[in-house]
Structure formats: C-alpha cells, structure tokens
C-alpha cells in the first residue's frame, strides 16, 4: 500500500538547514495497523505529513497504492488527499462553526457529492463512531473524546485507502484514549490501513507493528502482539 525509499527531508531554520529525515525506507501493506514512535523531534510528524501529502520530501520516492507521488501541484495533491487519505489530528481540527454532521460531510462536499447523499453518508459514519445523537452539536459542545470520534468519522467519510493519525490520543485521558483506540482497531479490523503516531507505549501496543524513529532514522521495526483496547476499558 505504502512504499517509501530513501526519504530525506530538511527544514530551513534561518541560514542553517535542519536535516529531519535522513533516509527512511519503509513499506506498509494493506490492512496493517502501524504505530510510529520516537522521542520528540525525531521526525514522526514530518514523516506522517509527507505520507499525507501535506508536505513534500526533498529526496526519495513515495508510492501510494501503486501511484507514484511526485512533483504534485496543489490541485492534484488536494485530489489525492481527498481520494486516498483520511487525517486525524491531535488537536482534532474540526471546523468550529459547523456541527458534527456537517464536519463529517465536508470531505464529501469536496468529492462533489450532492447534499442529500452527503448528509446520509455522514450520518452513517457518525453512527459508526457512536455519535448519531450528537449530529447537531457544535465542536465546542463535545468532549475531547467525542471530538476525536467526529474527526475519525470525518477521516473515514471519504472512504480513504489509508488513515493517518498524528497523536490521536495525545489530548485525551487514558480511558478516552482507549475508547478511541478501540474505534481505530475496529476500523482496522474491517481491513483499512492505519498509521498512528504516538508517544505512549500502551497506545503503540494496541497496534500490530511498531516503527521506532530516532534522529530521522528508523532504528527498530517490529511486529507485535496486538493488545485489544476493549480489554483495558
């Protein structure tokens, strides 16, 4: 599903350049649930942003579902993001003036789906994350866990190939974190490929594979026995 070869990324900081990713090689097969770990500043978010086409690598190749991702202009990148990818952020990134349902429906708007169908689909995803009753609520009327579940529903709405989650539980307490991980596991059980960036070993343990990053390099990449979040609730 994802193949990256020799990926490099530097940021310009003043007159210096900061080499953040120093040659990443990494494959993800369809249906995997991968966690990316590493200390702060190791380049986890940078990697995920490049995978999410929110940012571009300086060097190396990236193939997503057989499509070579290279020299994208904004327009094509937007289309690929819409078609292939779903994002879940630590800070939720819901649009504050739209209610839960409209937030979930937004990716569908950019797919050109008519309003009626959009609302139906969005509603079914809200049901899936257990928030059908909260459809009409604005983000600031929801708890952190609920917000993240709305964000997950939104990420799923466009039926993406890969779900990318950057510290999805970073702003949540452990009980709520497990709820969210439970949801992520359920989605993965249905066969969707998911990458989760996290700091927390217990969250990483709930995935099927842990990739460890240090100073812009992968130092460890291990398959693990998945801990079901359900058992921790």
């Amino acid at each position, binding site marked *: 599903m994802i193949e990256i070869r020799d990926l490099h990324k530097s940021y310009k900081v003043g007159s210096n350049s900061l080499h953040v990713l120093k040659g990443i090689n990494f494959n993800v097969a369809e249906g995997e649930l991968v966690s990316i770990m590493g200390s702060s500043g190791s380049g986890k978010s940078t990697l995920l942003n490049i995978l999410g086409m*929110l940012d571009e690598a300086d060097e190396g190749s990236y193939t997503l579902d057989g499509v070579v991702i290279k020299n994208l202009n904004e327009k094509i990148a937007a289309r690929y993001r819409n078609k292939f990818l779903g994002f879940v952020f630590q800070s939720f990134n819901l*649009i504050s003036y739209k209610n839960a349902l409209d937030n979930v429906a937004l990716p569908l708007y950019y797919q050109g789906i008519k309003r009626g169908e959009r609302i139906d689909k969005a509603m079914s995803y809200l049901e899936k994350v257990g928030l059908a009753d909260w459809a009409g609520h604005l983000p600031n009327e929801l708890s952190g866990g609920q917000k993240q579940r709305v964000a997950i529903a939104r990420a799923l709405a466009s039926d993406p190939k890969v779900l990318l989650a950057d510290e999805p539980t970073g702003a949540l307490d452990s009980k709520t974190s497990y709820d969210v991980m439970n949801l992520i596991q359920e989605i993965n059980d249905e066969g969707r490929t998911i990458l989760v960036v996290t700091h927390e070993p217990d969250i990483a343990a709930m995935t099927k594979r842990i990739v460890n990053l240090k100073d812009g390099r992968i130092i460890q990449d291990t398959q693990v026995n998945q801990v079901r979040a359900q058992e921790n609730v």
Partner: protein
Amino acid sequence: MFELERWEEIFDTIRKNKLRTFLTGLSVASGIFILVILLGIGEGMRNGISQEFQRDAANIIYVYTGVTSKEYKGLNPGRRIQMKNEDFNYTALKHQDDLEYKSSIFRIWNGIVNFGKESGSYRVEGVYPDYQFLENSGMVEGRFVNYKDHENFEKVVAIGKKVRDDLFKDGKDPLGEYVQISGINFKVIGVFTDPGGEREESLVFMPLSTAQRVFGGANNIANMAFTLEPEDNFEAALAASNYFSTEIENQLKETHTIAPEDESAVSINNSLENAKRFYDLMDMIKFFFWGVGICTIIAGVVGVSNIMLIIVKERTREIGIRKALGAEPLSIVGMVLHESIFVTAIAGFIGLIASLMLLEFVGPLIETQYISNPAVNFNVALTTVFILVIAGAIAGFFPAWRAARIKPIEALRDE
C-alpha cells in the same frame, strides 16, 4: 463547479458567522449610504444655486452708462453719458430680428409711494411691457403695463407683491385703487411676483412714456435691457450674446463720442457671461462632490480589503483543514470571493435603498436657501455599488489567493 452546493456552503458559513457578516456588511452599507447622501446633497446644492440665479431671465443683457475716463476728440474725461430714447430705438430696430424682449428703463429717484396713511420708499421705474419677461415676473392679479398704456401716457402702475403687502393692509384689493407717487395719482392695474424674492418685489413699474413725461425725464433713459432669441445650445447663445454686446457697445461709443478703449463710460452686463461663471461653479461643485465621493469609495474599498484580510487571516486554520480534506486552491479562492461578493452586494444594495429612501422622503423637506430637492441619479448610485462590490472582490482576491497557496501544514500549525 457545483454551483448550488457552493451557494449552500456560503449560506451555511454566513448564517454561522453572523457578526463577521454584519461587520463587513455594515462598512459597505454605510459607505454607499454616505456616498449617495453626499451626491444627493451635491445635487441639492446645484438645484438651490440654480434657483438663486433664476431671478432674471437667464440670458438678459443689461446696458448702463457712467462717466468717461478718457479724453477723446477734444472732449474732456469726466463727462456723464446720458442714453436717450433714440439709442434704444436705433438698437431695437437694427436688431429687431435677433431680439426676443427689449425695454429701456427710466428711473424715478426717491420714489415715495403713498396709499392712504401708509407709505414707503420703493424703486419706481418707467418701462416697456416686455420688461415683465426680462425680470421674469409673474402676475398675481391684474396685468402688467401694456403698449396702449405706453401710447396714451396712462398714469397706471404695476406694483410688486411686497409693495401691496406694505401699503394695502387687511387684505384690501389694490386693483383699481390709486396710489400717490410724489403726490401724483396712479391707478394700480396689477400685482406681480418675482423669483428674485422680496427685493425684486419692492418695485413699482409704470409706462416709460408716462414716467418720462410726469417726472421730467425728457427722452432720457437710465438703462436698456434685452434678451436675444433662443439658440440651439449654450455655446451658440453665448456667442450671439457676446456679439450683440460688442455691437451695442460700439454703437453707443460712436453715438456719444466715447474713446473705444474707455472702460467706464458704457457697461454691459451680459448675464450669459455670468451664466457661464455659474455653470463653471456648478461644475466645480459637481467635481468637488465627485471627488469626495471617489474618496469615500476608496475609503470603502480600503475598509472592505481590510476586512477581507482579517477574515482570511482568521480563517487560515479552517482553510488548512479544508485543504487537508481535499479542497483545491481555486475552490478556496472561490469560496472566499463568493462570500465577500455576496455580502458586499447585499449590503451595498441595503445602503443604496436606505439612502435613496432618506433622500426621497426627507429630501423634499429640505428647503434652505442653498439646498433644494436633493436627489441622486439612480444609475450613478447603482454604478457605485458595483464599483464597491468589484473592488471588494479584487481586494479580497489577493489575501484569498495567498491563503489558498499556503501549505496545509503551515495553515494547520497556525494557532
């Protein structure tokens, strides 16, 4: 793109961001409002000043004489030039095809007018019947002096409304009554009004012939007044009027042996010349108000641009989210512009309608000396709304374009 969907998205945004919409709208609406009111007042000033200038016939040419200032053909300077009936008759005959109205004027100084116990001092003048039209006077009752009065040396007078109000108390009808001027009885045959107001209604007119005979004027006249037949346009009228003025000046100078370059002996007041000044003044007022108007529009455009800048800044994160979810840059620009054009257009029309209503209902009530019936050309007002909307769109385009081009991660990092 999916037009209807876009509209829904815009309405959604507007509905849920009422304050932002209100503030944008307010600045646009008030800009248009101020502009239209301003243009309306400008128009009102033009109307008011026009009325001020309409005291006499617009194209009247007034001839009067003074004292010579230059020696000429052995005659000393300081000679008083006295026009005679012959001067008037000669001109009237020579230019009979060009003249519309003509009259000479004999002035009776110290015109004390009595009726019963009431008396007052007024300008008393002997004139030809045409003088009514030269003065732009209208009759309230009775008639003006006519040619028969003139031929028969009738002792009749037409009095101004002010004279009537002064002398004839308790609403007494002056027609057929006799007033005394310097002790001599004159029958009142008419009462006139004048657009020049009270000053021009404090006058008493009698036939020229009567005046000259009764008040020892021989065949002397004080002034001559003429209007020329109308021309097709202002420029032609001005040319004809200037030509006539020169003719008459030369004629008088020749008859009365005055140096051609003598400036003070013969004066010709050509009101079309004044009219030109008046039209120039009008144009200046117009330019001034347009200048202020354009500044208002510029201020409005700057205001709208500022608001657009703030809105786009405020929405940077939202734009980042939308882009992450698959919004193309063009759709972001489209969304921002669509909303801003919609809001400025609606607000512009609200401002337009409010100001037009104000002018419509309050305008006619304003009747000061210099402002009358302020109004504004609807097309002009409409155009200003379009200018503001288009300018707002252009002003909004650049921040929107910039925002649409920021990388989504940068937009998302924006706290």
